[in-house]
């Protein structure tokens, strides 16, 4: 995030003012429940870790698929990937998401993605690749748990999968091996995009959940600092 010069000055001025004003401010409740802050931070950290893990996993997997899948400028058509949860979203829409919706979208996306990943049953893949995939799935499961924790702390209900709408990305019998490779490619890409987006989502949530001192700062800001 880029801070414009004006912001930095404003913030610095506010901080100094806050420090001066503190004794006059009613005692803030610093002890007790830290709130959802730490678990949001943890979730953010997890997405960064997964992003890193995925880079390595994807590299290996795409090498297994062979060129052109592992070439940096590979640009296949997106066939049959409408069922994949899309991370791409209009910037204004993304900004204006309320917390509940933001978290729900993340939770649902990773539930689906985890399911597809588990179904990535490459019979021919090496034992080592299967192990890496399994390891990644476990980490992803951890991320889901972490998001669920944040939602619970904020009092939001977990989205329940409707019966009969379980994500089934089962290819039809005529699904060729090459098409399967393309599906795998897009799954990994979408996963990457989601992790990239989630980091932004949780960073945003983290800032929103700052302790009440921030509210004081903002109030002072309004006085023309």
């Amino acid at each position: 995030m880029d801070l414009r010069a004006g912001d930095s000055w404003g913030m610095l001025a506010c901080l100094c003012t806050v420090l001066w004003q503190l004794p006059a401010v009613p005692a803030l409740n610093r002890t007790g429940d830290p709130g959802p802050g730490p678990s949001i931070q943890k979730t953010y950290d997890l997405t960064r870790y997964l992003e890193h893990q995925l880079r390595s996993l994807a590299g290996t997997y795409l090498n297994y698929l062979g060129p052109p899948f592992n070439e940096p400028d590979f640009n296949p058509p997106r066939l049959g990937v409408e069922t994949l949860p899309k991370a791409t979203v209009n910037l204004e829409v993304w900004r204006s998401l309320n917390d509940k919706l933001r978290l729900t979208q993340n939770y649902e996306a990773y539930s689906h993605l985890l399911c597809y990943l588990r179904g990535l049953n490459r019979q021919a893949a090496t034992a080592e690749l299967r192990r890496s995939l399994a390891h990644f799935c476990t980490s992803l499961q951890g991320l889901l748990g972490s998001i669920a924790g944040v939602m619970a702390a904020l009092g939001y209900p977990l989205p329940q999968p409707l019966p009969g709408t379980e994500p089934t990305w089962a290819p039809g019998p005529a699904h060729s091996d090459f098409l399967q490779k393309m599906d795998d490619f897009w799954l990994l890409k979408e996963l990457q995009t989601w992790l990239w987006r989630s980091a932004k989502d949780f960073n945003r949530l983290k800032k929103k959940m700052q302790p009440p001192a921030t509210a004081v700062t903002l109030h002072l800001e309004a006085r023309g600092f």
Partner: protein
Amino acid sequence: MYKSWGWSNVRERKEEDEERGEKEWGEDTAVISPQDPTLLIGSSLQATCSVHGDTPGATAEGLYWTLNGRRLPPELSRMLNASTMALALANLNGSRQQSGDNLVCHARDGSILAGSCLYVGLPPEKPFNISCWSRNMKDLTCRWTPGTHGETFLHTNYSLKYKLRWYGQDNTCEEYHTVGPHSCHIPKDLALFTPYEIWVEATNRLGSARSDVLTLDILDVVTTDPPPDVHVSRVGGLEDQLSVRWVSPPALKDFLFQAKYQIRYRVEDSVDWKVVDDVSNQTSCRLAGLKPGTVYFVQVRCNPFGIYGSKKAGIWSEWSHPTAASTPRSERPGPGGGACEPRGGEPSSGPVRRELKQFLGWLKKHAYCSNLSFRLYDQWRAWMQKSHKTRNQVLPDKL
């Protein structure tokens, strides 16, 4: 239009996509025939890419092929008709990756119209060299060597099968890769006293091969755990000896067998092990002829010999964890005592003592763990050291 992009540029890519609008693709675009064929190395392939007529302006004109990302020379392709481009490949090499070679048909502008995976390799060769062992008669682990050809290009599936000789039903092992890539572990439900027939089947897209059948009796391939509680300690002040003690592996204690042991030891800095063989059914041993003031590493292993009265040896266990101990430092002779070698420092021995020393030395070399001679030797050595200090040349009465 197709900028180069890595994983980090996904966002820009997404925006591009949205501007362009999602493309329709699939059966409506083009199809390659044959789809995902399997071929022998060295064979030829005739493929076609047929563009569907629905798309306006769809023509085979300008189509080109790539194989594993590399554009194929135009002389290999020709237009069969307005909507079909043919490709002729000869003398195919084995597949570059086990997921199949990627044969792709591109439109003139480079976009992908259709793809097909080529699996080129050889049928598997017979696996061989199956060896199995049973740990405490509870399970069976087997290892084999794959046949050499056809294994790398195509994915080869190995299946270990076994059946009791006179009972007809084939079973398949399920836990693979337990001790290396070509191994399998059968954890339970093993029968004793009837031989098993064991073999390995290797299968890939081009065929299968079966190893020779190995017949074995579980009781003949039993191994056990290394002896627990190996202790190595000094023998009083004797500077060239260490005493090794261990416990017989508990897992087989209810079975009738005679344990055989082997001990190996080495000096701390060396990689050469000295092995003491033929340690039968005892749980202690004295090592001699060691260097004084030296750290030694000692390991023991066990062989469950003659289980249930069989006359055969079992399979040696793993070596126990190394146990270390050091021999006492040699005592220096008094001032003016001459060389510092503990033995060389002995005063010149009379002929009788020399002979005795040689005799006991011989005994020591040929019967490491013979307690009787050691008792004698110990006494003699202890006496020698004492007498060396007092420069007394008299032989002990017992001798």
